[in-house]
């Protein structure tokens, strides 16, 4: 058996439904997908749900992948979409505050702050679901507010205001955390 298959060979194997190739693909991308899932979920259990959904839809939709553009980007997008649909499922049980805001003011922090990735991840996970989704999609994935509004099924204004509130909330947490660290 070949020890080093190229990404294309692995993808083709997955398209043919070969479990050996699916395992290779899984090993290659699982930590990346788990990282994305963690950002969108409020805890590790939810992240695992998103993760599982994401990988299943990667394997099932892989036959539509036409080798245009990077495969990693494609997987990343599927993971984000899985997170969004997971959120929408969650949303049905909740109400979202709708408020209109046209402008999102900048909220700045000192970039030398001594926080680790896991500290920041914890802060993001602690955000309310709506804030967390918009913040992740806008700030980290780089989506536009129009796209986010369409994905989440809300208005563009809601997306903007949630983003602003998310930033304010994060800033507050950073300051709190910083004080704890200082003390």
């Amino acid at each position, binding site marked *: 058996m070949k020890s080093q298959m190229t990404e294309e060979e692995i993808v083709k194997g997955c398209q*043919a*439904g070969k479990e050996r190739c699916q395992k290779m693909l*899984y090993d290659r991308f699982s930590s990346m997908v788990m990282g*994305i*899932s963690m*950002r969108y979920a409020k805890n590790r259990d939810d992240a695992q749900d998103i993760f599982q959904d994401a990988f*299943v839809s990667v394997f099932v939709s892989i036959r539509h992948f036409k080798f245009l553009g990077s495969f990693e980007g494609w997987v990343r997008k599927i993971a984000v979409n899985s997170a969004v649909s997971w959120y929408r499922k969650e949303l049905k049980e909740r109400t979202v505050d709708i408020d209109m805001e046209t402008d999102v003011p900048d909220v700045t922090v000192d970039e030398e702050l001594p926080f680790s990735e896991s500290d*920041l991840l914890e802060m*993001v996970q602690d955000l309310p679901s709506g804030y967390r989704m918009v913040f992740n999609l*806008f700030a980290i994935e780089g989506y536009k507010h129009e796209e986010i509004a369409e994905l989440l099924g809300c208005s563009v204004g809601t997306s903007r205001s949630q983003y602003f509130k998310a930033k304010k909330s994060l800033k507050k947490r950073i300051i709190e955390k910083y004080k704890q660290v200082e003390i």
Partner: protein
Amino acid sequence: MKEIGEYFKDKLEGLDSQPTDLLWDKVRKDPAMRRFNRIQRFKRWSFYVGVPAVVVLVTAITWYYRSSVQVEQIPVTEKQETHQDLISESSNTTPSEPVAPVSSTILQSQEQPAVQKTEPQVTSQTVKTHQNQEVVYSEVDKKRGETTSEKSDILSPPNNNKSKIEKREKQQNIEPQKEAAQVKGPIVTQSTADPEVTFVEDATSLTHTDPEVADEPRIFIPRGFTPNYDGENDFFKVYSEQEIPQFELYIYDRNGNMLYYSKNWSDGWDGTYQGREMVMGVYVYLLKYSTLKGDPKIEKGTFNLIR
């Protein structure tokens, strides 16, 4: 100072997190995954099994069909016609009585002699199979029936139109030259004592044998053949009304590769070599045999494989 969104992006964009080992099992056993893998496995399996199966099936059918076509070529002869019939039918193409196809009839369908001109053009190019042949000929018969009502009482089942004409000529072998002149075509009939074997040839592809020499077997070597399984000229063979003594036939391609060898005078080459159909073109034969007195004879020449 830095915008908080960018700050988080820098830190979290490339975030990797190791999932627990259990998750792979969960993904693997997900119902959607299992269904997908099952479908893909089935597709693979059907491909690996289906393609060879189709190939085997096609080969078997082809083989069966070829062998059945060869069986159908059994020569049948029995006919009673007059010279008048030939002359009249060359103009109005009236069927007389049913005649079965004769395998020993040679017709250069590429260059139709004049006697065929009044017939609807039915050549071996348009007729691929014996079955089709019958269909085409029955249409021909229908047309004839319209044109000639005075002979409508005569049974005219679908039969081989060309061979009929040739058989008529067979009857006329007492004066073949005259007949050829009458139909104004480049036809040469090599007549023999046995009326069952008759050759109609274009004048440009004359035989190599001299019918005047009595101590030699009268043989005819065609200048071409059409191995398309239509029952006519499907084999390159040496035609003779009697056994050819010490017969040996070699066939070569133009590069000198031997494609066929036979010691049986009634066998012929079907245009294949090691199972492959050879391309259209010129091939070379070498024929060894002996006269009735026992003198060895050698004939060499070329012939066309026409597809």
